[in-house]
Each structure stands twice: as structure tokens, then as C-alpha cells.
């Protein structure tokens, strides 16, 4: 008798807590289905931005969408290895950040994000052409542009003033002349011609275009070996010896930052990270007169060649991987991150190093704060893609990754090959790709 009563009471108690438990934890099913999104990005040159990802986005997206965001950052050079291994083995991060036109290379492993791109573009004044061309294959968006890092020349205002150049040189000839004088005063121009994913191609391709040279024509035929190209290489050879820090052949993307901040070079093509670093380290980086270095830095676009000025800006995009089991959540995350309120938190911290891929952000008040950064506001409006005048497709990506154009200039500048030989070599290499 006692035992049955006991069991009954226990049973009732369990039932009570059981039901009550479920009712009390009515939020439990949502958490039980919470998804994880693993995003792989580069170590941002602006460390504060990664902090925003980890310390602001992670908790907030957990609250808003119940998504556990796992942020992994690696050296940008290691991203292709991870992407390749991931696609081949069918497992890895759910979202991978890609640069330049890598999305074209990995398109086969991508989830269609045209819906996200369409929404964001419509809401924010349209996506710039350059990132669009990087991310679309046959009209479909295989990656979602996240940001662009425009490249401009950072230069020491006072040094250019000292040699009588009050306005930054607008043509290569003027720049050459100024650079010559400055190098004689041990203040050369700093430019990398090494195998870097950022600064080297960002300089080499625009140089080629400014002389009217191009890799292929609209039909995909290689037209690199033209008089215009040879002229540009000849120019670069002289320009290099006369005005550049010749160690640049071995530089990576960070050497010019360090050189500039150490007061070793007068100008360098870069994103805004040099200026931002000088701002953030105003007590560490000083001019030779003792003033904070950032008061002596200004930005200007690359000089124009005989056929104009055509910049290249690095697009940073997010690809949602086809093998991912959390693709839906990944897209939700992207939508959430691109909303004005959330994106603002990330982009403001960049201080202009990385800018938004959409037009509306040009109107943001952050651009009114610092006149030195103003040129970056509208820089993304213009730009050409690699593989011009063909499409920025897989072949263009292959040529880019093999550093054919960069090496064309490096080989001539280092004296290893004559300009004509180097152009011939580069055209030959391109033909192997564009068959």
C-alpha cells in the first residue's frame, strides 16, 4: 500500500516537473535547434575590426538569430589552401572570405546568394561594378561582396613640398621626376613587385592599363604583347632604378607599411592601413621633426599614363560553401550582418581602410570626420577588373595567381630580362592559360 502510494506520488511529481519543465523552458526547442556558423576570414590589417566580429557580432547574432558564430581568422595567404581542401574534402568552414576574383575559381563549390545580393543592393543604393564582376558567374551571384579595400598612394606631404611639388603628380612622367629627386635625398618611393596578393598586382595592372595595354581583348585573345605594354615595361624599368627602393622586389604586403612608418620611403600604393596605423600610434610614429606622422600623410590616386588612369581595388567577398550543412543559417547571418545597424559597427572601425560595397555608404557621416581619408570615399566607383577586356573569370584568376603581370615588371626592373623579352615571356604564359 505504502509503496504504491509512494510510487504514485513520485510519478505525479515527475509528471508535474516534467510538464512544468517543458512549459517553463518554452524557449528550449529554439536553442535545441540553434545552428553554428563557422566563418573563415583573414587577419584583418585593422585589428579592431576583428575585435568587432568577435566581441560584438558573436553575442549579438546569438541573441538575434540564435546562431552561434565561430570566427576563425588566418593569414590571408593560407585561405586558398583551406578553401581548396574544404571543397575537395566536402567539409570545412561554412563561410569563407575570398579576395579578388577567387569566387570565380571556386564557383563550383558555392551556394547561390543572388537573393542576399539583390536585397542588399536594392536597400543600399546598388553594389559597385567591380565587386559585382568578381562575384557573378553567368548572372548568378556566387559570393556576397563584403567590403572593398581601395588602394591609393599614401605620401609624405612635407617631403614633396620640399622639392617644390605642391600638388601630387598627375602623370607618370611627373611622378618619375619627383621620385628621382626624392630618391637622391634617400627618400625613395616604396613599391612591392613581389608575389603578394594585394599591393603588387594592385600596382602592376593599373600601370599596364594606363598605357593602353591589356591582357586579352573582348573575345579572349591574348593581346598583351603590344607596343603599349612594352612602353609601360620600359618606363617601369627606368622608374624603378631612378626612384624606387629596390628592395621592393622582395617585399610582401606589409613591408611598405613598415618602411613608410619608419620614415624610409616617401610614398607607397596601399590601402589606408598606413594612415590608420599612424593615427592609432600617434605617439609611436613621428616625423623627423617630432610631429605625429599622421599629420604629414595625404592620399592621392595613381598618376595617369598616356591612355588614362584605371585603378584596381581589392574586393573582399563571402562565399557560402555548398558542402556546408548550415548554409541557410549562413545566409541568415550574412543578411543580418549587412543590415545598416550591424554593418555600420564594423565599417566605422575600419576608418576607411575597407569601405562598403554599396553606394549608400558614401553618404555616411564618418567621411566628414577626416579630410585625409576623403579620397577613399568615392574610390570604389571606378576600377577595372583583371582579365580586361575579357571577363574576370577562371582564366584571369589563374593569370593573377601566377603573378604573370607582376613578374613581367619585376623581371625587367631587376634587370633579369629586357623589357621586350619580359613582355614576350608574359604573353607566352598568358597564351598557355587562354587556350
Amino acid at each position, binding site marked *: 500500500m505504502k509503496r504504491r502510494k509512494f510510487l504514485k506520488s513520485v510519478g505525479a511529481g515527475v509528471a508535474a516537473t516534467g510538464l512544468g519543465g517543458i512549459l517553463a523552458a518554452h524557449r528550449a526547442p529554439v536553442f535545441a535547434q540553434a545552428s553554428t556558423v563557422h566563418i573563415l576570414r583573414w587577419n584583418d590589417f585593422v*585589428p579592431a575590426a576583428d575585435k568587432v566580429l568577435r566581441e560584438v557580432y558573436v553575442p549579438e547574432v546569438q541573441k538575434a538569430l540564435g546562431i552561434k558564430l565561430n570566427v576563425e581568422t588566418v*593569414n590571408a595567404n593560407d585561405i586558398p589552401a583551406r578553401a581548396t581542401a574544404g571543397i575537395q574534402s*566536402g567539409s*570545412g568552414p561554412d563561410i569563407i572570405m575570398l579576395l579578388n576574383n577567387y569566387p570565380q575559381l571556386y564557383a563550383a563549390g558555392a551556394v547561390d546568394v543572388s537573393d542576399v545580393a539583390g536585397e542588399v543592393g536594392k536597400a543600399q543604393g546598388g553594389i559597385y561594378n567591380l565587386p559585382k564582376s568578381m562575384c557573378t558567374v553567368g548572372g548568378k551571384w556566387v559570393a556576397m561582396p563584403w567590403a572593398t579595400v581601395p588602394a591609393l598612394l599614401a605620401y609624405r606631404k612635407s617631403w614633396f613640398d620640399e622639392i617644390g611639388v605642391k600638388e601630387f603628380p598627375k602623370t607618370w612622367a611627373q611622378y618619375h621626376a619627383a621620385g628621382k629627386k626624392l630618391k637622391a635625398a634617400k627618400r625613395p618611393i616604396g613599391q612591392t613587385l613581389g608575389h603578394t596578393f594585394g599591393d603588387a598586382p594592385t600596382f602592376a595592372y593599373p600601370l599596364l592599363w594606363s598605357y593602353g595595354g591589356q591582357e586579352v581583348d573582348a573575345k579572349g585573345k591574348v593581346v598583351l604583347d603590344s607596343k603599349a605594354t612594352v612602353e609601360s615595361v620600359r618606363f617601369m624599368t627606368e622608374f624603378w632604378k631612378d626612384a624606387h627602393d629596390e628592395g621592393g622586389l622582395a617585399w610582401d604586403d606589409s613591408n611598405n607599411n613598415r618602411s613608410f612608418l*619608419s620614415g624610409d620611403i616617401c610614398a607607397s600604393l596601399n590601402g589606408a592601413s598606413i594612415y590608420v596605423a599612424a593615427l592609432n*600610434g600617434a605617439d609611436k610614429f613621428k616625423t623627423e621633426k617630432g610631429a605625429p606622422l599622421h599629420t604629414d600623410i595625404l592620399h592621392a590616386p595613381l598618376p595617369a599614363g598616356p591612355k588614362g588612369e584605371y585603378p584596381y581595388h581589392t574586393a573582399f567577398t563571402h562565399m557560402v560553401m555548398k558542402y556546408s550543412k548550415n548554409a541557410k543559417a549562413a545566409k541568415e547571418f550574412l543578411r543580418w550582418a549587412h543590415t545598416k545597424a550591424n554593418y555600420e559597427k564594423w565599417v566605422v572601425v575600419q576608418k576607411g581602410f575597407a569601405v562598403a560595397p554599396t553606394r549608400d555608404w558614401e553618404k555616411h557621416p564618418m567621411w566628414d570626420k577626416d579630410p585625409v581619408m576623403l579620397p577613399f570615399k568615392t574610390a570604389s566607383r571606378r576600377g577595372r577588373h583583371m582579365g580586361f577586356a575579357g571577363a574576370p573569370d577562371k582564366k584571369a584568376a589563374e593569370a593573377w595567381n601566377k603573378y604573370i603581370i607582376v613578374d613581367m615588371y619585376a623581371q625587367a626592373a631587376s634587370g633579369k630580362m629586357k623589357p621586350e623579352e619580359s613582355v614576350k615571356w608574359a604573353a607566352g604564359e598568358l597564351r598557355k592559360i587562354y587556350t
Partner: protein
Amino acid sequence: MLIERKWKKWIFFYLPIAMFILFTLFPFYWMAVTALRPDHELYRTWRQASATPFWTLEPTLEHFKGLLRTTAFPQWLWNTMLIAIVSTAISLICGMFAGYALARLKFRGSEFLGTAIFITYLVPQTLLFIPLADIIRDMRLGNTPWALMLTYPTFLIPFCTWLLMGYFKTIPKELEECARIDGATRFGAMVRIVFPVAIPGILSAGIFAFTLSWNEFIYALIFMSSAELKTVPVGVVSELIRGDIFFWGQLMAGALLGSIPVALVYSFFVEYYVTGLTGSVKG
């Protein structure tokens, strides 16, 4: 008894030894100074005398502290230790068994197998890592330490086998034969007689395997993706190379701290290492 003149000793011994010490250890000295150097001193160029790369008047521990507190470096140290120890253990056991089999047992195909095992040493990891990524995924080992603990032995086993094979050959057969006459099994004789005698060789192979595991980069880069699971080489390179300012100090600090565990192991065992190699190379 050879009596050398004082000056001869200086020229032929002290001077060369000093040069060798300078050559091998100078980079470490420089790394140590860099790791202790405050940030604002790190960016002086070669032209500036004030760069003083060999000493600093304001040593600071901020890089070490930053490394240990703001990155997962201690975790990486632990991971690498664990993976190295387990890989070494697996490779040693396989190597000991295989080495004994190839050195002592007569069976058809022993030469072929010995050569085949040696040939696998020739296959470069840069060739294998893409297909391996597939296999690791199929076995669901991705992003777990076991991915490395099972793949590292692929380049450790051939070397251990070969080294121990040589070492076992130098051990007189009489030892085992006596044991077997006394009633031990082959297996028992191997474990209880041969292995203890071969300890220097085993230690030597183990130390070498430990070093190689510690040093591995590409598999660790590809198979481990969570920051907490990374090994020291991958973690230091991928999280401290931001391509920009401020992290050289931490990099050098990481490089020094990352070598300490292996250096400790060596300092205890270097004499064994030498005697172990002695045995194996005699054979």
C-alpha cells in the same frame, strides 16, 4: 699522448668552436632581444644607428605577456605537445615492431617490405594533403587531434623503422637465443630482452620523431581549423602574421617559447640520443 702547443689549440679548436657557437646561436640571441624590445624600438631601419639590434635599454615583457594572454598560445603549446607525444608513441611502437621484424625475422618479402617502407618516406606532404583531406573527412577526423596523430606517423614510421632496424642488427643474436633456450617465446624475448638493450636507439628515434612532429606545418594547417586546436607553428604564423605592425615582438616571443619544450626534452636526453645513433649507425 699528444701534446698540443697552446697556439695550435687556439687556432684549431677555440676559434672554430667560437665561430660555430656564434653562427648557430646568434639568431637566438637576436630573437631574444627582439622579443624583449618595446614596440617603438622595433621600427628603426638599418641606416639608423639607434636601431641597436643587439641590445635594448628598455627591455619589456609585454610581448610575452601579450602572447600568453591575448592569443591561445598556451593552448597551442599543449596541443602540439599532446599530438607530438602520441604520434611519437605510435610511430615508436610501429617502428620497434617493424624494425625487429625486418632485422631479425626471416620471411619472404622482407627485403621488399623494408624497401617499400623506406620508399614511403619519399612521398612529399605537399602532394598528399589534398587526397588526405578527403580520407580524413571520410573518417570523420577533421578538426580533431586524431587527424594529426594518425597522419604524422606516416613520415615518422619509416625513419624509426630504419633507425631501429640498424640498431637491432647490432645486438648480438646470442642474447635472444639464450632467452629462448630458457623458455621465452619469440615475442617475449623481443620485448623483454632486445628492447631494453635497445633503449638508447629507441630514445634516439623517439626524440627525432618528437622533433619532426613539432615541426610539421602543412597537415596541421589544413586539418585543424579551430583556433583552440591549432599547433604552435600554425597558430603563431596564422594568428600573429597580420602583415602589419606590432606583432614581430610577439612572433619572436612565440618562436622562443615554442622551442622550449623540445629543447627541454633534448637537454635531458641528448646523451642518449648520441649513444642511440651510435648503435644504429654501427649496423
